């Protein structure tokens, strides 16, 4: 009973991003610095919206994985790991090149007590088409 209520509450869409729509922000898709690349983070699903894990990029908190939200960071070319921690800690590793744009999509899977939010590296075409329905969260690091 308790478990069922918890799952139900965690699945409700409160806790979704409230910022401006991607189309209103219209961010550049590439970094303005020629030595850097741009990484977009986004989460399309409202499932488990109450769960908003911190997003760690090479150990640095760069934002939160908020349902229906997106943010981006610019970083020098190199190797990167994105880690989200809920019940479990999951990571995605990838290479970022100068002038490159990468998309990390956050998915939700069922967990023991709560959903697991984990990052996935997706094709640029997929990221571009899916991120338009998300709202800017501004890389909230609080």
């Amino acid at each position, binding site marked *: 009973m308790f478990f069922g209520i918890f799952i139900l509450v965690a699945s409700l869409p409160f806790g979704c991003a409230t910022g401006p729509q991607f189309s209103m922000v219209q961010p550049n898709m590439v970094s303005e610095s020629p030595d850097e690349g741009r990484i977009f983070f986004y989460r399309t699903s409202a499932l488990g919206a109450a769960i908003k894990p911190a997003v760690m990029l090479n150990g640095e908190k760069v934002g939160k994985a908020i349902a229906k939200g997106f943010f981006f960071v610019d970083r020098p070319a190199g190797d990167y790991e994105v880690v989200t921690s809920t019940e479990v800690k*999951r990571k995605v590793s*990838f290479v970022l090149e100068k002038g490159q744009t990468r998309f990390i999509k956050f998915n939700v899977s069922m967990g023991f007590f709560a959903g697991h939010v984990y990052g996935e590296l997706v094709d640029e075409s997929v990221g571009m088409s899916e991120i338009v329905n998300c709202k800017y969260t501004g890389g909230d690091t609080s």
Partner: protein
Amino acid sequence: MARLKNRISFVLLVGVAFVAGGCAFDLAHVSFEPTQFVQPLDHCKTFVVANDVPIDAPCNYDRLLRKGSSWKLVGTIPKGEVYKPLDQVLTVECSNIFEAYLVVSEGHMVGFYLPVEKGFVPLSKGIELPME
């Protein structure tokens, strides 16, 4: 009686939470072997996949090399040449997800190269690549 049952259920649930809290959920790992990566002499070598190529990747997360996708030589390792995708993302996934490149030897895909981990993930059986 019903109240007692509810209490017992709740205590059991809390007990399981304590036990499970100490468990490692990260159960499935990608097995890779560290390898030596050498930059290529020929930076222009590419190929195009002529037909869709399904791959039995580790942990049953199957992958597809898409028909028409382009692959560029970026280096060599002892197991073969390493090709990076130019127009699709390739990853190897278990509990964690790793960006991956193709390792090709004599026209066959023999495994994945993980550029961040600098490791080689072998396939159980080589796959012939239809190249253009």
